[in-house]
């Protein structure tokens, strides 16, 4: 399994992850190596095996539909990069 520099750039964009141009080749090489390792999984037949999501096969717990969270807006926004009037600020999205 071999990934190209273009593949890496595509994946990096999907992950919204900046990669320096000079590093893309080395990521392509490392990722190809990891995928080669991972491909060993195909040596085993897993037809009729149920995928395992939780080690104890525990289902998601349900609780009564009641508000349990307290309002932490002030303490959470105190550590935000940019806030104004209780809102998180980001660059303009709509013109």
């Amino acid at each position, binding site marked *: 399994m071999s*990934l190209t520099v273009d593949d*890496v750039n595509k*994946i*990096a*964009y*999907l*992950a*919204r*992850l*900046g*990669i*320096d141009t000079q*590093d893309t080749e080395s*990521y392509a090489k*490392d*990722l190809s*190596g*990891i*995928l080669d*390792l*991972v*491909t*060993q*999984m*195909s*040596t*085993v037949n*897993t037809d009729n*095996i*149920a*995928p*395992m*999501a*939780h*080690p*104890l096969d*525990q289902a*998601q*717990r349900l*609780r009564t539909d009641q508000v349990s969270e307290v309002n*932490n807006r002030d*303490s*959470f926004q*105190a*550590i*935000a*990069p*940019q806030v104004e009037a209780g809102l*998180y600020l*980001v*660059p*303009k*999205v709509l013109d």
Partner: protein
Amino acid sequence: MHNKTIAQLAKGLQAGDYSSQELTESYLGRIKQHQALNSFITVTEHQAIAASKQADAMLAAGDAPFLTGVPIAHKDIFCTQGVKTSCGSKMLDNFIAPYNATVVEKLNDAGVVSLGKLNMDEFAMGSSNETSFYGSVQNPWASNTVPGGSSGGSAAAVAARLIPGATGTDTGGSIRQPAALCGITGLKPTYGRVSRFGMIAYASSLDQGGPMTQTAEDAALMLQAMAGFDPKDSTSVDREVPDYTTNLNDSLVGLKIGLPKEFFDEALNSEMAAAIETAIKEYKKMGAEIVEVSMPNLKLAIPAYYVIAPAECSANLSRMDGVRYGYRCENPADLNDLYIRSRGEAFGTEVKRRILVGTYALSEGYYDAYYIKAQKIRRLISDDFNKALEQVDVIMGPVSPAPAFGIGEKTDDPIEMYLADIYTIAINLAGLPAMSIPAGFIDNKPVGLQIIGNYFDEAKLLNVAHQYQQVTGWHQQTPKGFE
């Protein structure tokens, strides 16, 4: 004083032999004296002294919980209210946690005094502590070797006796492997036993917090405080916590120990194999029986892990976007630029590698071939363990194929580093509890013996570990320069 165990210190504090403030100041002094180890990211000196005074008041008033006044420190993955919680990353270098992790809260309730936050691989991704934004940690046994990872700071600090115990987390071996490489005791509990709330997520279906200490008895005391159901963690298991100290002294006569033949193949360093065999002989002397078991799918553990863990990490780390907390790039041109540059500038190489692999594995057209396939393999591996544990009480083997390697020795080849986790990763996939205990030395570098048990059988593991520590002295060895 610093060679005392948590059990001894707690007793001494309750008896009034010394105060928590004296203890706290003494350990803070050692942390300062041995800064070169780089085991701490943050030392919370003032808060620690204040907490120790409070502990002394509680001790004087009587009826204080058993761990009152005992100094410990937390891996920097656990959120600590009002204290920087970096997770070893530039991304969270400015992050002051707004609340406590449940583990932190529970240990506080048990009376401990936290001295600070311990170094670790960035977002717990690494086996050597070399991916930390704050630099690598020295192994106290040989300063040019790694302490293991990702809980490398925890292991080094306990080994150097800078603290009597620490918290750690284990996603693929991150408690057990550094415990082995630094010659201390580490316990990864059953998945769901210890709350993950406030423990920064790497791979949510594998992550589990646990204690790192000198002895099994201390691990029992810390686990007692850490374990239990937490409604704030959706995968926490609602099950009673037994008294972990009750069975420590049970006899091991008739104990059935399974040795998986796949653990002792050519990948294992021959001196390591010999050291593990010597430890097993000690168990035979105590009356244990040895049974050969088989893990036919063990070789698939690393491939499956390197799909599941990166897939989950790519989803978990998407919350680090430069908007609500953490690092934000300068002058973003638009929202995409804000995301891309904030994440690109603040994540290190290993974290980026795993995000990329996970994003690829979860992308359209590849999901079944990678993620679902890996989850099916995960069941096969889990079935192997369950079958073996029908025949035996515990499974034993090495923790790592060789003792501590040199700093910088494996950084160029990520895959070589991944392969060294072969004996620990499978246990996380199965969700079983496992320990690493000190079991000798190779060229003055510690060796760890791994003990794997059945689901929620931590008390049995601790009993098996404690009995070994009654007849051996490996866990009492202190590295040169730290006596």
